[in-house]
């Protein structure tokens, strides 16, 4: 059935009648990124005001593919299990050339993870769950719908905002202004910041259809199907995904010489869909025609204004690196902003967000640009190479790896970040954690659920985690002692983390440092570096 868009209530904000005290954090935009940001901060006891010019969730499914790492972050924020229950789980992608399957890949071949490679779930559900989750923190999250920021002025230590409501304008002051206002960010435009990159000439039609009969045919299977030169869509490419509620996502490449306004009409879209779907009845739920674009801000941090998600960087969608990249921004910024607001870290820690997520954005842009170039060759010679890769792939394995219909979102490594301390272990510093099933005194647990959210010292095998202020501790495959200990199940933890190692883990689920001795001084140094390691970079940035 079609999603029922229920408006959220508007309440006249206090600033309309009397000046409000300066807020620690104002978040502009109540999409998945802004709402996640508010929940992340609330879990750390930091108050925020969330302003949105609208009062309903996202119109249309928009971001639908949520990657494993993102689901693990949403698990920490409290909506991961709900997404898993409602969403469509998948891990296999199939690629066709014409009618023939040329290659398939399995994104998560090993068991032993709480979350699958991907869950497909419409963005409106994710926003609905996040709004409900935000309402669990009435003293910490102040959600203000129909509050449109019309102007802002940055100062060295705060930002002034002008906000328009149905009852007129009011002023707000905040220590930190978090711009989560999306690809068309009004914040970015007011600041005249260049948003540079690459726009691709090709137009794409994106359509959601509701139908009882599965377009996956007899296979009816939750997978990602991609066609080069599909028989039902002349010479172009096509993508098919399954979503909950019998809704299917279809992407059709339309070519460069296309009038986007004329294409985004039922008159044009329905015949295209019928070519693909045959005589099976369907209802068109949502559609959009757009061009791919990869662009980013040069810097994500401008004094007290911080850009998060699409306002900071956009990528073309094949690869699911937009929404997923944004949620990883939140994961990276949340603990840092909380530490700075609460006086536990120097302001320079926010600079490390720019460094680390700038690196992530570059990786996402590079991958999505390459996929787009492969899918939409821009010269006869590129077309020739692309087609011959597909020809070779039918027989020779090496060519299958070159087929690029989107390299699906993976967390980037932070190995080169100034917050990390180099070292050697089965999972090296900078890598995102890998989940593992554990058995504990109170029953079965997942590793990620035990360690995410705060700095943690994880001890595996015969090594004891020393007691260091500010660090929580857990052990795997060791006897119960001064901290909670678990047994790894089915050898997964041992295979992923080895034995006889201490892992210093960041709140955002990345390995910060590793040790093979319980060296208190070395661990304390690495822990301190995770807070002040960006000091030099901040100096460099202002020089």
């Amino acid at each position, binding site marked *: 059935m079609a999603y029922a868009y229920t408006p959220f209530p508007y309440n006249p904000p206090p600033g309309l009648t009397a000046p409000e005290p300066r807020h620690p954090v104002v978040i502009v935009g109540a999409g998945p990124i802004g709402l996640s940001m508010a929940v992340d901060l609330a879990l750390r006891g930091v108050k925020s005001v969330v302003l949105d010019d609208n009062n309903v969730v996202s119109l249309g499914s928009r971001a639908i593919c949520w990657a494993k790492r993102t689901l693990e972050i949403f698990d920490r924020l409290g909506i991961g299990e709900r997404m898993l229950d409602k969403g469509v789980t998948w891990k296999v992608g199939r690629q066709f050339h014409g009618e023939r399957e040329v290659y398939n890949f399995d994104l998560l071949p090993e068991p032993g993870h709480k979350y699958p490679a991907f869950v497909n779930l419409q963005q409106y559900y994710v926003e609905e769950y996040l709004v409900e989750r935000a309402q669990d923190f009435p003293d910490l999250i102040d959600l203000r719908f129909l509050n449109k920021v019309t102007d802002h002025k940055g100062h060295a230590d705060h930002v002034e905002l002008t906000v328009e409501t149905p009852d007129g304008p009011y002023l707000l002051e905040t220590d930190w202004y978090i711009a989560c206002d999306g690809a068309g960010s009004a914040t970015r435009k007011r600041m005249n910041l260049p948003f540079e990159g690459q726009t691709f000439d090709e137009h794409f039609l994106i359509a959601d259809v509701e139908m009882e009969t599965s377009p996956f045919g007899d296979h009816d299977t939750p997978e990602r199907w991609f066609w080069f030169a599909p028989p039902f869509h002349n010479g172009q490419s096509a993508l098919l995904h399954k979503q909950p509620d019998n809704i299917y996502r279809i992407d059709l490449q339309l070519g460069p010489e296309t009038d986007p306004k004329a294409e985004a009409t039922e008159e044009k879209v329905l015949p295209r869909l019928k070519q693909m779907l045959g005589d099976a009845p369907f209802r068109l739920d949502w559609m959009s025609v757009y061009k791919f674009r990869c662009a980013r801000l040069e810097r994500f941090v401008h004094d007290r204004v911080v850009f998060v998600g699409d306002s900071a960087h956009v990528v073309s969608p094949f690869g699911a690196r937009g929404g997923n990249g944004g949620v990883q921004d939140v994961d990276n910024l949340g603990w840092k902003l909380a530490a700075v607001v609460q006086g536990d870290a120097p302001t320079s820690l926010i600079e490390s967000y720019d460094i680390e997520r700038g690196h992530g954005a570059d990786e996402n842009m590079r991958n999505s640009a390459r996929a787009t170039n492969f899918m939409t060759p821009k010269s006869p010679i590129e077309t020739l190479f692309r087609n011959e890769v597909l020809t070779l792939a039918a027989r020779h*394995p090496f060519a299958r*790896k070159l087929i690029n219909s989107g*390299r699906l979102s993976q967390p980037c490594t932070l190995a080169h970040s100034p917050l990390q301390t180099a070292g050697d272990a089965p999972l090296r510093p900078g890598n995102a954690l890998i989940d593992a099933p554990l058995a504990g005194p109170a029953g079965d647990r997942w590793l990620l659920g035990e360690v995410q959210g705060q700095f943690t010292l994880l001890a595996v095998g015969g090594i004891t985690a020393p007691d260091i202020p500010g660090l929580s501790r857990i052990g795997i495959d060791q006897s119960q002692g001064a901290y909670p200990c678990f047994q790894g199940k089915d050898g997964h933890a041992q295979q992923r983390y080895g034995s006889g190692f201490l892992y210093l883990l960041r709140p955002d689920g990345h390995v910060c440092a590793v040790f093979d001795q319980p060296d208190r001084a070395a661990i304390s140094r690495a822990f301190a570096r995770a807070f002040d390691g960006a000091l030099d970079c901040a100096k460099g940035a202002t020089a």
Partner: protein
Amino acid sequence: MILQDNLGTEGDTVYAALMAAHEGLSEAESHALNARLVLMLANEVGDPARLETLFKAARDLA
């Protein structure tokens, strides 16, 4: 003859670099570049027997 993947995680990088090598060339210039490249790679492989097998494998898909 290696027909299993031999580029690992660098496959996309190599493919992008190959496309960049063709950037801005006319179709005829690109075909000439391809011919030079095949000859250079043949020299790089340096083994007539392996090259013969590769030529045949490519030809079989024609």
